[in-house]
């Protein structure tokens, strides 16, 4: 099983890079995963990652991309709640890639 | 010798609970687990089956399964004792024979 390496500890992930044990997540781990994804975390990235973590905490689900965009639009406005802004932050898909960095499972209902 | 019966099916979906009560002898113990705990709730169509035994059985329900299903202890029928996993083990140890109704 592949794993992320962090300060001598290892955190296992699946073949797509999603961590297996959700409790193993930390901001430090998020940076390691982001680096693996070739993403340098900015405040804007963290805003989306934290939004996803809050959404998961409340609903026990990682939202599909269209749901994520709609909800970000509602809570942060349409300057951020759109495809262009979110794909600029997470080129491989704001739901899939941001969920991975947020330590969540792959989004449900992503087709 | 009293038997410990365990029932893990909803009384509304399967006839398991009714069949268990129909075959249990006075003094036997019945422990409701998993979906079986729905039989422990007050005011259901199945509550009459328990009432009909007039308290001649020792009835138990597993607390973790009640909590998982949103059944508070105050909606559990009076006379049914809520036990934890330790209590489950004790019941098995106290009875020479257990029958798991599936």
């Amino acid at each position: 099983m592949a794993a992320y390496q962090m300060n001598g500890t290892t955190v296992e992930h699946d073949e797509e890079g999603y961590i297996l044990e959700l409790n193993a997540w930390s901001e430090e781990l998020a940076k390691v995963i982001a680096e693996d994804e070739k993403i340098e975390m900015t405040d804007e990235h963290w805003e989306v990652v934290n939004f996803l973590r809050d959404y998961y905490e409340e609903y026990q689900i990682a939202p599909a991309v269209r749901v994520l965009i709609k909800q970000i639009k509602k809570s942060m406005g349409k300057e951020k709640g759109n495809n262009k802004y979110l794909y600029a932050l997470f080129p491989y898909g704001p739901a899939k890639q941001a969920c991975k960095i947020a330590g969540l499972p792959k989004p449900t209902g992503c087709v | 010798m009293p038997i410990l019966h365990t029932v893990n099916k909803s009384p509304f979906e399967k006839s398991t609970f009714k069949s268990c009560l129909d075959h249990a002898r006075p003094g036997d113990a019945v422990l409701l687990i998993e979906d079986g705990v729905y039989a422990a709730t007050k005011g259901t169509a199945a509550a009459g089956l328990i009432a009909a035994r007039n308290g001649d059985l020792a009835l138990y329900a597993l607390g973790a399964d009640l909590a998982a299903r949103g059944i508070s202890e105050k909606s559990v029928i009076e006379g049914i004792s809520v036990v934890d996993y330790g209590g489950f083990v004790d019941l098995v140890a106290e009875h020479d024979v257990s029958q798991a109704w599936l």
Partner: protein
Amino acid sequence: MTTQEELPGASGTKRFLYVNRRAPYGTIYALESLEVVLIGAAFDQDVSLAFFDDGVYQIVKGQDTKGIGMKNFSPTYRALGDYEVTKLYVEKEALEERGLSPDDLMDITYEDEDDDWAEKPSIRIVSRSEMTEIMAAQDVILSF
């Protein structure tokens, strides 16, 4: 990807009903159904959910699965509105047979985009005969 207007009954849109008849943790049916609903929601169909028999137990409030080591997926029903699944029909007789009332169910709501995001209830309590009619009015019924 843009959000399309919901046009029930418009050409190409079918009425889908997911029938939920099983209690949540004893079998995998309830969770499977919920996942299929969430995945299917991407296809912009006119989706409704029906809860009767032991299915009403899926949306009972206060579920706490810490003690049984299973995931508590009941909060996910509250996300259905975000997926534009806004019609959850719950049979009154099924509740009564189980000693339950509508107050024992979770608050499941959706925000109506066409009404200034007003929060509205998704749960609609219906009689058994109304449930029969709801099923008769569908194009596709998926039963779990």
